[in-house]
Each structure stands twice: as C-alpha cells, then as structure tokens.
C-alpha cells in the first residue's frame, strides 16, 4: 500500500509540471555544483577594488556551508585580470571555454567589461551584475546577455539634477569632468535630468585628461564663470585636488561630488577634512561607520558575516558591502531559477527580479528588472559631509 502511494505521488508530481520538476542543466551546472566565473583586479592600479571579489567569495562560502543553493554548492572561480582588457579577454575565454562556467558574475571595470561585451553576447553566456557604473550595460536590445549592477553614472546624475531642480532651481552650475566615457556619461545624465533648463543652468564646463598632472587651471576657469554650484566628476586623485584648490581659491559653491570619489579615507582625508565640509554625494549603501545603523538587523548580519568569513577585511570599506550585496543578488537569481539551470533560464530570472530588498542597501531601495530594463540599482539617497562622515538626508530618489 505504502509503495503504491509513493508511486502515485511520483506520478502526480510529474503530472503537475514536467517543466518544473525536470532538472535541466546548462554548462557548469549539475546536481551538486554551480560553476561561476569572474575577473577582478587583484593586482595592478585598480587592485583596491579587488576586495569586492573577495567579499563575494566569502558570501558564497557562507551559502555553501549552509547547504548551497537548492542543494548545489557554488564553485566560484575569480581570476585576476590586473585591470588590463587583453588579460580580461584571456581569462574570460578560459572561464567560458575551458572551465565551462554557467555564467559570469560581477566582472569589474568599464574598459575590462567593454573588451568582453561582444564575446559573451555572441557566446550567449549570462554576464550578470557587473561592478561598473557605465550606462552601456543597460542595452537589452543589442546586448541581451549583459546586465550591470551599480547605480549607473547617468542615473546618479539625474538624481543630482532632481535635487537641484527642487532645492536650487536658479543654480548656476559649473562642471568639471574627466574627458572619457565615464565623465561624459555623468554630464549627459545631468543635462537629461535638467531637461529644458540645462542650457540656462549650466554656465561652464571644463574637462581634463587623465595624463594631466594637475587641474588647477580648470578650477580657476570654473570659478571665474561665476558659478554657485560645482558638479565635480573626477576620479580620486583629481577629486582631492579639486576640493583643495576650490577651497584655497576661496570658492564656496554648492559642491556635488560624484560617488566614484566619495571615499573619506582615500579622497577627503588627503584633500583635507576641513576643506571637504558641505560636500554632497549620493549613496545606495548603508555605511558601516554610520552610527544610525548600529541596531539595524541587516548591518548586524553583515558585521557577523564579515567577522566569520572575511576577518582580514576592513569592514569600513564600502567595497566589501558591494561584493556582499551583488553576491546576494546572484544567489536570489539562482534560487529563483529553481531546477532549470540553463543559461537561458538564469538570464530570464535575472530579467525578472521584482521588489528585491537587500540588507546592506538603504531602506526603500528596491531592485526591479525586466526584459526591457537591465538596470539593477537605480535609486540612491543624498548625503552631506559634516567634517567627519557622510550624513544622509532627504528621501530615496529614483534615477530612472
């Protein structure tokens, strides 16, 4: 009798949904394993970002020790590309063609991802949750297999534009930007966000090349334009120079600093904390040093996780929270993929994330994706520097 019920149950489960119950595997997936590939700058000029990959690896270790994803252990192959695009191509081909990974996850850097963009789409390998803010990753028509993760540069700029339109509609804006895709993305976002008023509000623009030793000349030019708002789109070294020079010139505009250079330790401290008071930036993450999250459950979990699985890391470094959150986003996608671990289905699930809230993202920030929209993080909150730390203010603002 018992055996008969068992048989019936098996039969019933087949009848309910063959698609659901039948296990389907793409390359790199099996009953016991899911193979994931990544490239990271563990060496070279961008190696400070390498901790993102290490934090993700630590999170997968935690998932594995808790039984894995639907019983499958994650094998995470995170390779060093030294932030050099040719090396990225080499490593990604190795991951796809030799290791046969199911997907690529969290590959870091704009030039590096640009180098593999066409290749992974031609090979139809999911290229998920890239650690870069370029806007071009959200192009599902031409690159259906690629999906960024960070708040895009343009979305961030649109958030600043919304803020300015609301609080300072008569602002005279001066922009300093790096003369490349990154800088131009920010400028475009601001102009789009200001819309009609962009022409009248933006009074001066100056660019610089990465090879330039100093940007004093640009700051003098911007100050001379009579602007009362300064949009600072620069990488850390130049950001520190700009903050210091503006202060030394006695120029006191409303100073908006892009997220790229908002690190207190790496930018504001060298520039001078007293010279940085009043800076404004946007943030999507809870800052581990901000006392307001002291009793927050998500923060407590994060700190406990870091202590157990990544004790050598600097918990105040927000890059660790980024690695942790992107890994959570991937685990969510893989769980949602159920027993169908083909590349097609994983990509489909990544395109259908609904209202996902992650513990280290600011309250109110939700992740929503769709087949037409491959942007993952699209909201942030503004913060003002008080001489010691960034203080959040206002509401979470959407950048779409």
């Amino acid at each position: 009798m018992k055996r008969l019920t068992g048989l019936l149950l098996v039969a019933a489960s087949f009848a309910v949904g063959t698609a659901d119950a039948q296990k389907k595997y793409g390359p790199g997936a099996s009953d016991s394993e899911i193979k994931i590939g990544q490239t990271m700058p563990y060496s070279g000029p961008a190696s400070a970002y390498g901790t993102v990959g290490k934090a993700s690896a630590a999170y997968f270790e935690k998932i594995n020790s808790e039984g894995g994803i639907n019983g499958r252990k994650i094998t995470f192959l995170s390779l060093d590309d030294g932030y050099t695009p040719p090396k990225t191509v080499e490593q990604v081909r190795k991951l796809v063609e030799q290791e046969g990974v199911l997907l690529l996850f969290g590959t870091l850097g704009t030039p590096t991802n640009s180098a593999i963009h066409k290749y992974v789409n031609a090979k139809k390998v999911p290229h998920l949750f890239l650690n870069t803010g370029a806007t071009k990753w959200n192009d599902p028509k031409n690159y259906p297999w690629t999906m960024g993760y960070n708040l895009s540069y343009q979305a961030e700029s649109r958030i600043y534009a919304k803020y300015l339109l609301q609080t300072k509609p008569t602002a005279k804006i001066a922009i300093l930007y790096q003369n490349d895709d990154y800088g131009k993305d920010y400028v475009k976002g601001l102009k789009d966000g200001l819309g009609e008023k962009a022409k009248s509000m933006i009074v001066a623009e100056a660019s610089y090349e990465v090879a330039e030793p100093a940007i004093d000349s640009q700051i003098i030019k911007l100050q001379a334009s009579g602007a009362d708002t300064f949009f600072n789109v620069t990488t850390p070294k130049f950001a520190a120079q700009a903050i210091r020079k503006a202060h030394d010139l006695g120029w006191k505009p409303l100073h908006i600093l892009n997220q790229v250079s908002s690190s207190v330790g790496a930018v504001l401290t060298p520039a001078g904390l007293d010279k940085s008071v009043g800076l404004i930036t946007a943030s999507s993450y809870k800052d581990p040093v901000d006392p307001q999250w002291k009793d927050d459950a998500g923060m407590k979990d994060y700190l406990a996780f870091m202590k157990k699985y990544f004790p050598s890391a600097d918990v105040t470094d927000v890059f660790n929270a980024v690695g942790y959150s992107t890994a959570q986003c991937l685990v969510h996608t893989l769980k949602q993929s159920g027993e169908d671990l083909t590349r097609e289905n994983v990509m489909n699930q990544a395109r259908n994330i609904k209202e996902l809230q992650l513990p280290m993202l600011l309250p109110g920030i939700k992740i929503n994706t769709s087949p037409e929209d491959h942007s993952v993080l699209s909201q942030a909150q503004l913060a003002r520097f008080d001489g010691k730390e960034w203080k959040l203010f206002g509401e979470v603002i959407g950048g779409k």
Partner: protein
Amino acid sequence: MDALLHQVFAGLASGGIYASLALALVMIHNATNHINFAQGEMAMFSTYIAWSLINIGVPYWAAFVATIVISFFAAAAIERILIRPVEKAPVLTVVSVFIGLLLILNSVAGWIYTYTIKSFTSPFPSEPPFGNKFVSSHELGAIAIALFVLVAMYLFFRVTPLGLAMRAAAENPASSRLVGIRVGWMLALGWGFAGAIGAIAGMMIAPLVYLDPNMMAGIMLYAFAGALLGGIDNPWGAVIGGFLMGVLENVVGALIGTELKLTVALVLIIIVLLLRPNGLWGHKVVSRV
C-alpha cells in the same frame, strides 16, 4: 584679465614642476648621453622613501637630506648593476632596460604602498606669501628650489673639474679614458646626481599633485616636452622650456578650451622642433666622421 593673470601664475607653478624633473633628464643626458625613461618613476620612489621617513617621525629637512643621499646611492647602484652590462649594447636594448625599470619601480611602489593617494607634507607655510591670491607659498618655494638646483648644476658642469670630466666622459669616452678619467665611475656619478635631483623634484611635486605610484606618468610627458623644447643638453633651456610649457598650456586652455590645451601645446612644440631640431637653446651636435 584677473582670471588670465591667475592662469599664467598657475602655469608658472606647474611649469616649475616640469622644469625640476626636466633638470634630472638633462643631468643624465649630459652625463651619459641617454634619456632615462625611468627618471620619473625613480623620483616617485624616492618620494615614497621620504614619505616613509616622515611617517616614522623623522623631521622634514632631515628626511629631505636623507632621501637625497639614499637616492644618490640607489641611482648609482642601478647604473652599476643594471645599465653597466648593456653599456655597449645597441640603443634599443638600453631603452628596453629603461622601460623595464620604469615598470618594475611602478609595480613595486604599488605593491608596497598601494595605489591610494597620499598627502605629502610641504616644508613651506600654508598661507600664501604677501597676502597674494595667485600663488601659494609651496609653489613659490618649489620654483625657488628648482632655480637653485639649476644654478648649482650649471656651476657644477661649468666650473668644477669633476663636472668637466663628466661631460668629457659622456661625449668622448675613449679619449677621456686616455687622459685618465675613470669613465665607468663618471657614468655612475651622473646617475647618482640625476637620482638626487629627481628626488628633490619628487618631494616638491608631491604636495601639489598627491603621492601615488602613477604620479609621474603625466609629469614625465610634460618634462620631456619642456626639455626638448628648450634643448635637452642645456639646463637653462630645459628649465625655460618647462616654464613655457606650463604657461602655454594654461593660457591655451583658458582661451581656446580645456579639451585642446594639451594638443595645442604639443603641436606648438612640434612646430618649434621642426624649425630648430635641437630645441630653442640647444647646442648643435656635429660629429666628425
């Protein structure tokens, strides 16, 4: 007008930066007839040595002098160990060694000190001198030190027997050896002096642009351009070339637009070099065959 004047002064300040590194290039060129592509990275590394010394509590000027001495011996040692074996090799081999040295110093600095920028102490007061608003005390001090190095270097090559021997060794090693000059040691000395001058340049530059392993990449480009513009074998020419470079670039940036400032400045230099291939104040080199 005020803004333009401001640009000129800012240009002089960055010109001082280019000039000080250009001097190191002239030094090594006059002493060895080579152009050392790793000069900037050597200066960067020296600056890190100074930074480490200051960080463990050594007073600024003591660290300054110690760094110059260490850099002198380190650069001389590099010549003895790395350059000596390729002394007679074709010029391309030597260039490869220089580029290798550049990459090694850059990576080792990144490995030891990380790529995060560090602020570097200035020995000069933080308030601008005489209450002016155009130039900071450090910029003025750095220019003064560059000019001091220039005069010292000029006198060294002109007046002292050692300077004469070094020039002779670079220009005609065989004859120099015949009159009793130890050519090998002259080359090492030349490297040592260039290393020391580079160290001074690095310590004057770092407070302005922040210290990081890639600090010199852009500056080297401008220093080269300045040195070639003024004449790579003439310290005066190289310094004036450096200042010209800084001012030209800023004024072009202010008048035409910041996107074109580097391009226009470099195009002007190419035009000058087409008309005067040895630079504005360089000496014509005539070889008898």
